[in-house]
């Protein structure tokens, strides 16, 4: 069954078409959910809510742009909504002098297992993780981030910079810890 038939089946609320769509995009959407959530369990709940919204709103999909992109945006916007509802969500408002400096790394991150890297992103403070994901991983410009999150562009840039510094620090800490472990086991 091609994608158009699958979409029209979902519009007609056909259970078989819905199930197929779920298994077709489950893993891709779950990756998005994992990035925006602070734990595996929260990501599963977020995926559930995302699919419910997708099935309820699928008739509004007009065929403009990729269907996968449309579904990913639903997952992202639902994550933003959840962040906004949280009382502990406070974004850094002070500016940094080196705001526009990029955070560079050697290719150390390549040696880190994927689940560890995901874990380090999930452990970032909520506000940093949100801006880092939106800007670096999903390609939202600061202007759009400021509009959808409800912050100024400079705050968005500040949060991004801080998130990258923090993530780099934690990656390096993890690598040094692993190196230390290897040295200990070698001795």
């Amino acid at each position: 069954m091609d994608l158009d038939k699958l979409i029209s089946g979902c519009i007609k609320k056909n259970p078989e078409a819905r199930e197929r769509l779920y298994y077709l995009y489950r893993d891709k959407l779950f990756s998005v959910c994992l990035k925006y959530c602070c734990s595996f369990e929260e990501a599963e709940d977020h995926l559930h809510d995302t699919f419910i919204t997708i099935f309820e709103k699928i008739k509004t999909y007009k065929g403009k742009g990729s269907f996968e992109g449309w579904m990913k945006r639903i997952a992202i916007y639902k994550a933003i909504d959840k962040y906004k509802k949280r009382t502990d969500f406070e974004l850094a408002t002070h500016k940094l002098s080196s705001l526009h400096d990029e955070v560079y790394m050697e290719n150390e991150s390549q040696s880190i297992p994927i689940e560890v890297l995901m874990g380090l992103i999930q452990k970032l403070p909520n506000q940093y993780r949100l801006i880092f994901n939106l800007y670096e991983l999903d390609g939202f410009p600061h202007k759009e981030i400021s509009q959808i999150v409800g912050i100024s562009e400079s705050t968005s840039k500040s949060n991004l910079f801080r998130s990258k510094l923090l993530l780099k620090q934690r990656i390096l800490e993890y690598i040094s810890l692993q190196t230390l472990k290897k040295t200990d086991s070698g001795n």
Partner: protein
Amino acid sequence: METKRTLGQQVKERLDDTGFEPKKLSWERINATLQKRKRRRFFWYFFTGAVIVVLLLLLSNWLYTSNTLIEVPAEKDIHEEVSKKNLDLKKMTPVIEIENDTKDNAAELIQNTVEKSQSFVKKPLKNTSYDNKIDLSKSIAQSDTPATQTQKKEHLAMDGVSMQDSIDKKDTDTTRQEKKSKRVLKKKAVKSKSDSLEKVEVKKWTISIHATPTYSNYLSESNALLPESINRKKNFKLSWSYRLLFSIPIKERLKFRFGISQLDFKYAVSFEPDPDANNGYGGVMISNVTAPINPLPNDLANDINMGNTVELEHHIRYLQIPMEGVFVLGQRKKTNLDLIAGIDLLILQKDDIMLKSANSREFRIGRANYLNTTAFSGHIGLGISHPFNEHFKLEVEPTLFYQFSGYGDNVQHPSPYYFGIYSGLSFKF
């Protein structure tokens, strides 16, 4: 040589395809949530429908009441008022003698008032309000104009009638007048009693027998029996339904009806089997059928093997118990136009899934596993009735039904609806 790249680029590359799978979340959990929301939605539709019906009933009740609630002076009150007036007359000076004539006027007014009030009871007026209450005392006072008084004073002076004589005469007249008023009131009381008897007669039971060809279909395009991937076509099917209704008037414009009805539906879908397929019915797997599939008769099997079009029919029969309100929208000559709205309890009686081809008879392959034994539906319609004589009426009632429930959680609610033009006779006892 390793090159320095931004942290964002490195992380994005790693997370492009993580290969993570959700562990706890399954399709069943999502499906269960969707079904729950659907049930909640149908509950709200049902609730909204019920509220509309109740509001219609209340509106009809209010319309009826506002037309007929005219405060008619009670006979006792009229009598007391006349007696009081007579007592006042006795205490008054000769000038009041003129009031004797006023008493005549009062008696006439009372008579007119009673007649008017009875005509209100018999025939409700639309634009009548409490402002139109008849104030007897006001009317009596207004009827006595200064010109009449002066004329009568002069007349008395000319005749040389003494004051005492006048008073005596007045007393005699008063007694006569009282008797006359009592006679009028007695007559009216008898008439009023006969009117109330007429009212009781209206509250008679009516029994109706109706039949209709029923057209039924689903709003949903999906079919629980056939997979989505099969090319299929919904076919228009007519069946017949019958009902017996009892009605009792609640108000002049409102009736309550209930009864029993037999509803037959036929939902049909045709598909083309694949002659080369070895499974199912020419490659078509029919799902949600409970009974084991029996061997097909030869003529049907041959048609399937040749790839001829096969029709899958679902025959459903419900015993329906309708409860409804019938509100009279209007009347032209003797013909009534009614609004009908209500809910129905449906009890499943027949559930057969049949296969049929051009060269074969219908063959039962089983029954659906998703139909509940009880269900609810709501309906709305119009009724046109015309009396032949005192007892018999011809009734035509086009009615649309929507089934709220009756489908299991294993399938999507297909939103079934059915339409019938119920026609028949009613008999008023």
